[in-house]
Structure formats: C-alpha cells, structure tokens
C-alpha cells in the first residue's frame, strides 16, 4: 500500500518535472548556428548529401566509434555472462527446401544490407541499418538450422578486423591530415557519387560490417550456439 502511494508520488513527481517543458515548448523554426554549419559543411566541404551521415561519421565520429564499441562490449559481455553452457536452441524443423530457400534469401538480404551501408552518405540509412539487415540474414540462417560454426570464428575475425580498420582510418586522419577520424584521408570526389565524400562511405561500410557481425554474435549467443 505504502509502496503504491510512493509509486504514485514518483510518477506524479516526474510529470511535474516534465510539465513545464511541455507547456513551455516551442516548435523550432530554424536551425541553430551549429546545425546550419553542419548542413552547409556537409554539402560544401565533405560533399555528403545525407547530413545525418556526415554528422555521425565525421563531425561526431568519436561518438560513433564509441557506439560501435558499446555494441562490441555488449557482444563480449553477453558472451561472458552466458558462459559456455550449450543450450538447446530454438528449433524450427527445417526442411531441405527451407534451407535452400533461406540460403538464397540470405544472399539477397546480404546484398540489401551492403547496399544500405555503402549508400549511407547518399540516402537515408547507413552502417547501423545495413548492419542490422546483415544480422537479420544470419538470423534467418540460424533459425533455419544452417550450421554457423565455421561462420562464427570467421565472424570474430571480421568483427575485429573491421573495428581495427575503422580505428586505423581514424589514425590515418591524424597522420595524413589534421585530426583523428578526419575523412579527408581519401579524395572527396564529386557530390552525390558513390565514391565520394572521402572516407565516409568506407567508414560507414566498416561500421556496417562490424555492426552486422556484432549483432550476429549477440544473436548467436542469445539464441544458443550449437
């Protein structure tokens, strides 16, 4: 009873905290100085049509590196917590037809994923979204009982190497240009082209690969490996 009252007070209190924000909220009309700088810079300096991508990969690249690291830590952490026990995994009675179909499907999904992260600087989407799509491909394999054993160890390599490559491009930024994670280590190219915007698509692809493999790892660990 006391607890219920306390919960009630807590929730009402939170409402009281947020209420002034709602009542004082004004929809913004124009970009603030910083955001305007991003939009201008993205188009003119980095030649990235998708401003969100340039913010993610370039201006706030350190965040994104950190984000990839968080996901990596979750992968490793889930692995550490769900230590070793071979669980019975989700079984879907897979027929040969299903296996074959899913293999084909997976191939198509992979292609889609790759498309999404390589075009991250041009269209909405990018490394994270592409990575998830790739992971969903592997999920399908997992569900349809295709052995992932070999893939798993390759996955580790891919995961590690893409991460290291990401950092390496960042370091190249220090060595070749003026700062860590500067995309101008590669030529900026022509606005709107696939191969443009310096290292942005490369970084986003690496992120895509890394995120894909990390998410797959989480899925495999959570789903129970055989």
């Amino acid at each position: 009873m006391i607890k219920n009252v306390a919960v009630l007070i807590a929730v009402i209190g939170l409402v009281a905290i947020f209420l002034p924000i709602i009542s004082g909220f004004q929809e913004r009309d124009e970009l603030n100085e910083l955001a305007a700088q991003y939009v201008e810079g993205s188009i003119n300096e980095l030649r990235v049509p998708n401003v969100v991508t340039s913010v993610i990969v370039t201006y706030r690249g350190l965040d994104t590196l950190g984000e990839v690291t968080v996901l990596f830590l979750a992968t490793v952490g889930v692995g550490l917590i769900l230590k070793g026990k071979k669980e019975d995994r989700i079984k879907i009675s897979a027929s040969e037809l299903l296996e074959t179909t899913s293999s084909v499907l997976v191939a198509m999904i992979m292609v889609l994923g790759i498309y999404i992260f390589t075009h991250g600087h041009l269209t909405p989407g990018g490394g994270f979204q592409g990575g998830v799509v790739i992971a969903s491909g592997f999920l399908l394999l997992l569900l349809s009982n295709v052995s992932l054993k070999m893939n798993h160890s390759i996955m580790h390599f891919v995961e590690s190497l893409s991460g290291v490559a990401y950092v390496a491009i960042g370091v190249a930024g220090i060595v070749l240009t003026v700062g860590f994670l500067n995309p101008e280590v590669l030529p900026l190219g022509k606005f709107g082209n696939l191969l443009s915007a310096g290292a942005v698509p490369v970084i986003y692809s690496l992120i895509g690969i890394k995120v894909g493999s990390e998410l797959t790892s989480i899925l495999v660990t959570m789903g129970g490996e055989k």
Partner: protein
Amino acid sequence: MVSPIYILILSLSVGFLLSIFDRAGRKFSLTAFYSVLTFNVALMGDWLYRLAVLHVPTFVINTAGFNAPVSINLELGVAEALVLFLANLTGLMAAVYLFDKFREGKVSSLILYLLLVMGVNGLVMTQDIFNMFVFLEILSISTFALTTLKKNLKTLSAGFKYMIAGGVASTFFLLGVVFVYYFAGTLNLGFMTADQFSGIGLIALFLLSVSLFIELKPFPANGWALDVYQSVDSGIVSVIAVVNSAAIGFAFYKIMPLLPSSFLTAFGMAGIVTFFFSNMMGLKQENAKRLLGYSSIGQMGLLLASLVFTIGIEPAVRYLIIGGLFLNHLLSKAGLFWIAGIVKEEKIRNWGVLRNNKPLLVLFGLFIFALSGLPPFAGFWAKWEFVKVLVDSKMFFVLGTVLVGSLFELIFLFRWFTMAVKENADELEPMASPGFSRIFPVSFFGILAAVVSFGAMRCFYGSNWLQVLPVIAVLFITLIDSLPSKVKGFISLAAVAGYGYYLYPLLTGNIQLFFGVIFIAGSAVNLISTLNRKNQSKGFYGFLLMMIFSFGNLLIASTYLEFFLSWEFMTLSSFLLILRGQNAQRASLMYMIFSTAGAYLIMVGFSFAPALSSTAALILSIQDVNLPLISFIVLAIGFMIKSGSVGVHIWLPEAHAEAESDVSPFISAILLKAGVFGLLLLGIAYVSNAPSFDVFYWVGWIGVITAIAGAFMASFQEDAKKLLAYSSMSQVGYIVAALAMITHLGWVSALYLAFNHMMFKSALFIAVAGIYYRTRTRKMYEMGGLISRMPWTYMTVLMSIIAVSGVPPLSGFGAKWLIYTAFITKGWYLQAGVLFFASGVSFLYLYRLIHTIFLGQLKYEHQEIKEAPAWFIIPQYIFLAGIMAISMFPNLIIKPLNAIAMHYFDSSIQIDGLTVMSELGYWNGNLVMYVTMAVFAIPFIMLLLLKGKTQKVKQFNIVYAAERPESPQTTHVAHNMYAHLRKSLGSLSLPRVQEFWNSVAEWSHTLGAFFRRVYTGNGQTYLLHIILYIVVMYAVMGGQ
C-alpha cells in the same frame, strides 16, 4: 609528446584484436592487455609531469579535422591528467590484482576491462556532453558485464539492480543532454554558459546533473551500489568504487560551472547527508565488503560536498582539499577492497585471521588510518583545510555533520581494526598466503599512500623534519625490529636523550622547558622500566618513540596546524600502544573515539582562531592572539577530553588499566599532561584577551568535580591499575581547577601539581607493574602481605602515596598548601571546600592501595615471589629521589614556576631562602620535613622498644568454625571495601556517565539500523528510491 588520444586508439585496437591474439595463446593476449594498461599510466604520468611541473598549456584534441563545437574535442589539463593518472594507475593495479582471474578466465573479461579503462579516459577528457553519455555507457556496460566475473546468484542479482539503476540514470542523462542542446544550441561544454539556461532551461541542467549525481550513489538512492560492493569480486569492486566513481565524479565536476547556486547547494547538502548517513549505517555493519561500501559511498558524498563548498576559495587550497580527499579515498579504498579479497572472511569479527600475515595487517592498519583522516596521510591535510573553509564561510551545520559523520566512520573503521588485531581467530581456518600478484598492488598502494602524504606535506607546508620525526621513528624501529627488545630499548633511550638534547635549545620559553622536563625527561625515566621486556615486542618501541617525539613537538609547534599534527600523532601512537594490551580491544577503541572527538573540537577551535603573526612557538605566541569565545569553549572541551575530565572520562580508567603495565605510566603521568598543556595554552590566551563569557570559571568547576568524582571512583576499584587511573583523573582535576583560576598562585600550584603528579604517578604505576609482573594479577584482594616479599616496591608506594595525599612532609603538602592558598585568594571558597573533601576521599583509596597489597597476610601462592626486577625499581627510585628533592627544597621548583607565572601575572608570592610566602602565610619545605621527621621518630622509637613483646602468628593458623566459603576472596576485607560508601552515594555514583555514553552509542546504532532498512534488497524498491530522489531534488531545487 604523444597525444592522449592514443590511449583511446590503442585501447580500442587492442580491445578489438584481443580475441584474435588469444587464439595464439593467453600469453599474447595478456601481454597486449597489460602493455596497454601500462602505456596508459606512463602516458598520463608524462602528461601530468608536463602540465603540472613544466606548465605546458592545457592540451586540446580536436577530432575529425574540425574545431569545437563543430566536432567533438577532448581536453587534457592538470586536473584531468591527475585524475586519469591515478585512475589508470588504479586500473593497472587492480588488473594486476586480478591476474589469476584474467589468466584462467575467458578473454572476454580482458576486453571488457580494457575498454572500461578506456571509457574512463574518454569520460574524463571529453568536452562534449553527448560524447560523455557514450563513454558513460561504455563504462557502464563493461562494468555490468564484469560484475559477473565471479558468477553466482548474489553477483547476478546485484548486477541486475545495478543495471536497472544505471539504465534509468543514463536515460535521464540522455534527456538532459538533448534538452541542453535544445536550449543552448551546442553540446560542447566549452561553448555553454550558465546564462543560456533559465526558466525551463534549468530543467535541462537539472536532468543532466541529477542523473550523474545518482550514478555517484547518494543516500538513500544507492542500495544497488551497496549490493554490488558486497558481492562482486574485490578487484572489480575496487575499480567500481574508485576508478568509475572518479570518472563520473569528474564529469559532474565539469558540468558544475553551469549549475546555478541553488542546485549546487542542494547537491552539496545531499553529499553531506550521504556522508553522514552512510557512516551512521556503517556502525551496524558486520560484513567487511559492505562496510567498505558504506565507507566508499560516504567518502564520495564528502568529496562531492567538498567540490561544492569550496567554490570560490583560493585554488591551491581547493585543490588540496579535493585532491587530498580524492587521493586518500582512492588509495585506501582500493587497498582495503583488495585486502578484503585476500582475507576472504566476510564477517569483520573473523578478521583476526589477518594476524597470520603481519605485513598485510600493517598495510590494513595503514589504510584504516589514512581513511580515518589521521596524519600524515593526505586526508588529514584535506580535512584540516576543509574544516577551516567551512568555518570561514560560516557553514556550521555542514561542519557539524561532517565531523559527526567522520567520527562515525572512524568508529567503525577502528572497531574493525581492533578486531583484526585482537579478536580471537583460533577456530578459524588460517588465511592462505596470497600470491605475489595479489600482494603487490596492496603494498604498492600502501607505499604510495605514505609517499604521497609526505609529498603533500612538503608541497603545502614546507618541510620541517622535526614535524615528521614521529613517523621517522616508527619507520626506523620497524627496520631494526628483529633485534632483541633490550637492544631496541637502549637505542630508544638514546634516541630520546638525543632528541632532548636537540630540543633543548629550541625551548626558549620557561614554560616550554618546564613541560619539556615532564614530557621528555619523564618519558626517558619511564622508558627504563620497559627494558624489562623479554619478548621481542615488535612495534612497541616505534610507537613509544612516536608518542614521545610528538609530546616534544607539541612544545615547539609554531602554528595551529603543527600543534594539531603533533596532537594527532600523539593520539595515534598512544592508541597503538594501548591496543597492545592483552584485553585492550574495547579500551583502545574507546580511547580512540574520545580522543578523536576531542581532536575534532580542537581542530574546530583552531579554525575559528585568527591567523598567527608570529613564528614563535604557539605556546609563546598565543598570548597575542585574540581567540573568539567559541574557540575557547570547544578547545577547552577538546583538551579536557584528553585530560580525562568528568563526563568525558570514561575512556580513561579502561585505557590505563588495559594497556600493558609498562605503558600505563606513560599514559597517566605524561599523556594526561598533554591535555593540561593544551588548557594552559588556552589559559595564556585568556589572560591577555579574555572573552566576554568566563569560560574558565566553568572549567574550574569541572576540574573540581573531576577531582572528587575521580577520588570516589578510585575508592571503589578492585583493580590496582584502575584505582590509580581514577586517582590520576582526580589529580588532574585538581590541576585543571588550579589552572582555571587564572591567577599567579593558581598557575604555580597547577604546574607544581603537574610536576609532582608526573613523578609519583609514574612511580606508582611502575610499582604496580612490578607487582603485576610477579603476581600476574591486578586485583588487590588477591594480594596482601607483599611488604615482606617486595620491600623496595613497598617503599615506593608508601612514599608516593604520602606525596599524593598532601600530608607533610613530602611534596604533596606543598602542593596542597599552594592550591588552597590560591583558592582562598581567588575567592573560590566553595570550590576549595569541595577539593578539601576530595582530598579526604583520596585517603580512602590510598589506604586501600597500600593496605590491601602490602599489609595483611601474604597469600599462599605468593610465598615465594621475589622483589620486582631492577628495571622496575630503578625508575621508581629516580622518581622518589625527585620527590624527595622538591620536598626538601621546594624552591628548586617553585622558583622557576614563579618565573613562568610571572610572565603572565604579578607575582603573589615571595621566596626567601627556603621559605615561600604568600599573603596568607608561609611554607618552608625544609622545616616541615624536619618537624615531621621528629614527629615520626617518636612513635618509631616506641615501636622499636616494644618489639620484643610482639607475637607472630602463622598465616594459616586459623580454625574454621564452619564450612569453607565458596569463593574465599570475596570475604577478604579488601573486597568491595567501600561498599557502604557507594551505597550512600546512591544515584550520584558515576556509572551514570557510563550509562549515558552507552545509550548514546546504542542510539546511534539503532538509528543506523533504522535507516538502513531502506535497503530492502529489492531492485524495484531501489529504483523507486532513485525516482523519488530525483523528484525530491527537483522539489528542493525548484523551490529556490
């Protein structure tokens, strides 16, 4: 000059690759892992050196080729470098501590650990609040996962509670971040100003700050943290408690400039509340790691409060306070958690097992002392300055809470320590000897704590090697501790003599010289009795020298701080000496508690005092200082605690009685005089600048009541040492009363009494030491008739009690004459009357002492015992010689005392040859001696003549008429000797005081037990606490 960004780069690359390295073998992954951690430490050390010593400007790292605020930037200034150097160092050491786990466990734990440390580095350096969020998440997730390094139900459920709390806190942090962006248009701290936030904009700041604050575990929204501290592997806990907290605390520090003062005050208060309640709840805690958890949380609270309440003061002082508290917490808490992991016993009661491993026990003590804020450790300096700041800014509520909280902390820490030193551990499994990887970090931090403390001292106060001599003495004796005790005894004697020789020219004032004789010469003579020690007595001489040197340093202390430093050294060393007694666990703890309470009052009193203009010794320069009334009051109470005044005396009898028998003379005869010295210091200030309220009138009354209460209590004791202890209390009461008169004659008599008491009480305690050495008992009714077996000792006791009681012809008579004259000239007739009555009572116990021990029938088991060893007899007779000398020639001492007092008052006595004259009469010690001797000679001759008619009765020449009593001792006349008297005193009898303090203790424990009930163990309730905490903080801050 390697950019600190490489810490992130290297950690990430190696972190990503570690699982590949591991396939090649654990050797490789471990090598890479430790290399990176070492690299971090080295890089930060280098940067710290550049920034702090070479004064290179703050290093700014822009990322992505743009300047802030467009891109995220990192900054490395002195504060960042210091925090990161220490955090990385702790991280490395904790990793060394975890070496076995890392070698055998999964590679995952290496990766998580490495990236955790990276998260700390990023969090501290980044200037971007969203980037802070990302690094906070890196830190959190790796910590969550690492809590399962030791995986059981407890760690899992604790980890889950941690995640719930951390998850919600970071959600609110994220909200704060985006609201801040909404209002300020930037995420970079360097581009925000406080005036960008007003009205609802403050809510953004509120969310941002309160969520970080929650991560810093404020009471009562911190149950999750306690569970984690208790259950998770010690190595990881040390990282959570120290490294994570440091990083998050630093993040909080970075956003502090944006916060309005109402927020800051609320956070500061919340920190204080946390400090207070954590320590109060710690009182009741029996689980070692949970206890450390309470202490950690409390320390963080204090640290946050110090961050807030030192805003605006001189930066150097501010950094000293914050840095000192932080460093102290970091080193000692990590060290203690590691020791807790090595000991493995959960209950602090079982920590007696630590005695198997002496070096570890020493380290344990060192960390405990550091954490309690004792000198020379960093916390001491920080606390001193912090108290001063609080006093200067008139935050008395905060001050009081901090001091009471600190006292609570000291109580549970020292309780734990005394348990480790004394509690019986015979039935427990002996502790396995820890491997090198476990012992190394602990030792390293122990040494570092010591080095740092001296460094801080040098840095901020210059260095006077004499001030640290007490510690040097301990270190030196530790080095030669394997020598036989007698050798060490002689070395110590030589050291004391050498110290005295060195000190002598520094004692320019007569008053210093006088106390120099009591402190140094008195100690030297008392030291002779310790030469009787047969066993190795490890540590004993170190502590003894430490105490003696701190006595001496009190005399020449030229600032408040130096005085207080020596005072605390004295407290610590005497505590350790008392603790050596066989059953001294409780006694020493009580001593420490009361002493510390007194020390805090002294610290506060000095903080109120105006600055000193002179560089002379404090005792000389104090007369030019205009102390405020509050200083007089608290300092008087502080000093009276040390001198064992009534009401706060309860530590005294036990400490005297339970200390080793050759330690007791030091405590009674010399240590109590330190309290007197303090009161005299206060008196001198009073003479020249008396406050409006007559403090010393009341001090005088307390002295008088102490004198009579002590006398009564002494009469009721069965234990010879307790009897002497209460007698000391009573005698010091006389001294205090005499001092409090603030007249010439009063001071002469007080100092005279002090000197006299030093001699006869030393002699008496050493005599009892000799008796105990032979009979192995302190209960007087178990003795009797020892006059025939120990005539030399008997002689000492006889002469001494004559000197005490104030009957002619010995020195006590002069003392009494002086003091009554002083009272009458002062006009304190009632006080004089009470004291006169007290002297009557003192005959009761003195009679009991000599009668029960030496007269009557010799006990069967004592038929064959011998006289006390020569090492006991020699100092007794040196003191007796002193007593005889000043009895015969009182002017030997009256003259210098007259000179001392004349420095402050007009003389009220004249000295003419051997005669001392006051306005009420005169006293000639020599004459008194001859008259009395003549009076004694007559009955003595009579007795000799009648000798032939005596009939000797054999001891057991008794026929029992009925059955033998159950316990024959209780029928002894000396057993419960003054029971009727006690009865007649009724409710006036003094155990009331004891009861009072017991109920104080009980109440604090009950409150602690009550408040800790908020920690139900339910993760959901903890979350509710967090939400309610946020709501309440909002209400508090919004209300202003």
